[in-house]
């Protein structure tokens, strides 16, 4: 049995353990869409550039003269970008189990109301309704629906029984990370988690943030700071983590 409340999809699995998934809002949806739109645009531009180069290489024919040739050549030129435009979402959502590159980068994925990957039929229906969600222009109707419906569903989602949730796909590094917890140290498991997380993200942080977070952490666990230099601070943290 599943129910949705407060932008969360609550599912009770067959083993009676409830799982709650956070439903993606309009911001995440739009961000993913913009990324996907740019990927499609880049593919189309790459195709046109290729045609232009081939036209010049074969018979020194310019792109505009190919377009104005009045035969079926313009159709061939525009066909692949059109196919990419219309089939990008359904094909990738089927192949990538409810994800597209844009959705993956945003950390969201498509699920049905049971929290499972939607069937191929549901994905096709969802994408057919882009014809309506895209009306009158720039996905205005779909945007309004996603903004004002309880679970941020556009018409296609309402039709197919799908919704976008934040992806909590198991991260392969988590098991390795769990092994790193120094279970015989004096720190609580929560502090150890915090430490491993900080060390994992260390390289992504700028110098000032590294020093600030390291100081805050050492103060929290009651350990005296030995060094001022960030490299030596990292060494001290790694020693604490037993690495």
């Amino acid at each position: 049995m599943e129910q949705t409340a407060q932008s969360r999809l609550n599912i009770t699995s067959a083993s009676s353990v409830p799982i709650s998934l956070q439903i993606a809002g309009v911001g995440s949806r739009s961000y993913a869409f913009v990324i996907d739109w740019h990927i499609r645009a880049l593919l189309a531009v790459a195709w046109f550039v290729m045609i232009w180069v081939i036209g010049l290489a074969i018979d020194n024919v310019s792109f505009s003269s190919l377009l104005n040739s009045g035969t079926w050549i313009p159709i061939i030129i525009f066909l692949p970008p059109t196919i990419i435009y219309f089939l990008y979402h359904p094909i990738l959502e089927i192949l990538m189990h409810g994800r597209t590159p844009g959705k993956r980068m945003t950390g969201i994925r498509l699920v049905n109301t049971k929290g499972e990957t939607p069937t191929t039929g549901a994905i096709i229906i969802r994408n057919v309704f882009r014809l309506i969600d895209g009306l009158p222009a720039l996905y205005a109707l779909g945007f309004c629906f996603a903004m004002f419906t309880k679970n941020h569903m556009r018409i296609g989602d309402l039709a197919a029984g799908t919704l976008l949730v934040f992806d909590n796909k198991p991260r392969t590094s988590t098991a390795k990370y769990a092994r790193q917890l120094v279970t015989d140290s004096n720190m609580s498991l929560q502090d150890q988690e915090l430490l491993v997380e900080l060390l994992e993200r260390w390289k992504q942080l700028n110098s000032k943030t590294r020093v600030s977070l390291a100081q805050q952490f050492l103060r929290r666990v009651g350990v005296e700071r030995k060094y001022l230099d960030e490299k030596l601070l990292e060494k001290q943290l790694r020693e604490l983590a037993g690495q």
Partner: protein
Amino acid sequence: MSAANRSKQALAQWLQGRIDRWESLEKDLKQSSDKKTYDVAQTNELIDGVRGAAQDLALARQVLPQSRITQFLEGLLLQGHETVHRPPGSVWRALHQLYIKDGPRIVAQLKWTIVAAITLFILSGVAGWLLIANYTELAPLFLSQPMIDEVQSGGLWTDDLLNIIPSSFLAFSIATNNVMVTLFAFALGALYGLGTIYIISLNGLMLGGVFAYTAHYNLHVRLFEFVIAHGVVELSVICLAGAAGVGLGEALIRPGARTRSAAFREAVSRASKLLAISIPFLIGAGVIEGYISPDPSFSLLTKTAIGIGFGILFWITITGWVSRFERNGVKELSNAS
């Protein structure tokens, strides 16, 4: 040793003892997406792994709430649950279910909506005919200027079609266009059915208007010759998609005991099956329109026979005559045995 330290040590031992199992389950789940079949031992192992993950999650939520390990276990359980409870997939079984069982049942449910859609199309066609027959100057509403010029000079815009575009390309582009129109006619039903009614009426008006204009120049028989081979199925599918779209509108207006969104979802699920059956026929109509309709080497009689034959095949399929035949066959077989 203090109680806090003891519980921490117990937690540490539990964690160290479970990590290998989680890694193994994670690996199995990753491989499962490529696997078609499992042996009994593998299946049991997977089911045990998912059960174990559920128990571990319940414990992790108590001792490590909001932690990354708990999130990891939630993801693992969700993926495991989906893998274990995934229904068996068989393309042939799904096609059999769609064409033999679901399609005829849905057509029977929608029969009066289909009749209404066909009636609306015919009435719009008659209206289009009467409009252009009485006011020929309104022809630009339905025909472009080059088409009007062609008709006025005694020809049809379809005459030299094969000299301009190869049949294969023509068939592909027509089939694509047909599929798009059908999907539009269906999806516009989400606007309380009004969009669908608009599409059906417009298509009827256009067909009637174009025929009236060509009749004015005595070219209607040639237009009929072009349309008949592919038109029966093409127009049938548009009416069917229209009926499906009206069904969506009806679900939104009169959801009955269900919520509006549940009624809408149910209507979409029902209607999309009908479209899935129709789309191969639309592609067939596109092929006929690319290869046969514009080809003057096929006579009117041949084109009419192809059009009517293909139309009969379409209606036999969606109304379930095939399934009736199959059921009767099974009955006869059981009687004989």
